[in-house]
């Protein structure tokens, strides 16, 4: 990892960490107040209200991990923190995506959903982790760089 890449990683994951922290705080407030849906962002916990406070704790942890990883970002232990934060996002977002896939196949009163119903089940709103998911994939680049460096 060269200096420019390290600098970019530091800035990028500072922003991502701050965003994750903000989402976590919002989810924490939402879980205390019964949840909210704002545009395409869903913190209502409608599908699983008991998981909402856990999601908030996970997001706050993600934020802390990212932010604590930016100092000496090229160092492997620091990078591991960012990898850990990304994996946490992948697990929660993966669960959310899997829930959608599983519920999109059966129809309400039939064995299989209609095409319209199938596509509609992937419609917004989405949980914050799903928004963070694509941005968290940037860590894969740094993992590969680290691997190359080892060689």
């Amino acid at each position: 990892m060269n200096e420019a890449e390290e600098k970019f990683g530091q800035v990028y994951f500072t922003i991502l960490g701050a965003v994750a922290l903000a989402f976590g705080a919002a989810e924490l407030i939402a879980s205390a107040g019964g949840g909210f849906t704002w545009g395409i962002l869903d913190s209502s916990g409608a599908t699983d209200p008991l998981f909402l406070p856990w999601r908030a704790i996970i997001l706050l942890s993600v934020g802390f991990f990212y932010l604590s990883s930016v100092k000496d970002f090229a160092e492997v232990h620091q990078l591991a923190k960012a990898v850990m934060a990304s994996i946490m996002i992948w697990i929660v977002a993966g669960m959310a995506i899997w829930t959608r896939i599983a519920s999109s196949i059966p129809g309400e009163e039939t064995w299989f959903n209609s095409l319209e119903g199938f596509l509609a089940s992937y419609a917004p709103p989405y949980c914050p982790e799903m928004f963070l998911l694509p941005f968290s994939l940037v860590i894969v680049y740094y993992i590969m760089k680290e691997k190359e460096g080892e060689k």
Partner: protein
Amino acid sequence: MRSGKLPLKAVAVTIMALVLMALSTASFSIPVDAHMPGAKAPPAFELSPIVITDDGTEVEITIEDVGNYHNERMKEFKRDMLKKQNKTEEEIDKIIEKEFAGSTGICPCSSFAFRAALLGISELWGDEIPERADIKFITRRPTPGATQCLQYITGTGPGVPDVKSKGELQMILPDGTEVTDLSVKNLKKYMVDMNLSNWNIVIIRKSTGDEFEVQVKEGVIPEGFFELRKKVKVEKTATPEEIEEFRTQWEAVRDAFLTQPDWELFEGVEEPEEEEADVVGGAIFFSILVIGLGLLVVLSLRVRVKAR
């Protein structure tokens, strides 16, 4: 000759006995409503309860609670009436048992009042749970079913269980007459001529002064219902066909209040717009998901190939 007559008699007696037995069994098996003998049981329905707080305690009032209360009050009224006719306790019990067999107390009036209260409370309090003492009803319907339903909710009726605080119930008929004695005996005087304007209840949130009027839509009550009711219930001049016709209409009105949505029953209630499924948004996300997964597979394959 003798031996030929005896079996005939025996057959006739047996048939008579069988017919009598069948009739008596039928009278027990047909669900009979206290106010409309021979009425069929209502269809399956799902009505949420009215939830209020009474001095801090949450109380759930179901239509079944209201029906039972109405039933008990009507039995008491009947008992008092029969006592005045010098019937013995045994006779009274028998008559009441027969007349109220299978009755649920859920009649058009009690179900109308329940639905009106349910709607009014949700309109005025939204997601909040109203305090019983904060509820006021002004009813235009002088029937025992509607009145006792509202008495049960406000806790103002005799024998309503677990009442700590009371709401308010006022009866002002469409012509402006205020009825203060809400006993069944007194209400009978005002039940002679009724029309659609009597299917009206005003719900008031006392603490804010906000009110919501519930008026039954035209068409909910079948044509000729009021005339038939007068003939059957008041003048008692109806033919058996008219009684049967009224019974059918009575069941239809009751069933409508138990099963139909608010916007089909009451004036000024708009049908909620069905949210259109966001197929485009879903399709975009699904495409991104498929492309993302495809890239992931390609990437992992390339990594493997590179590793070899």
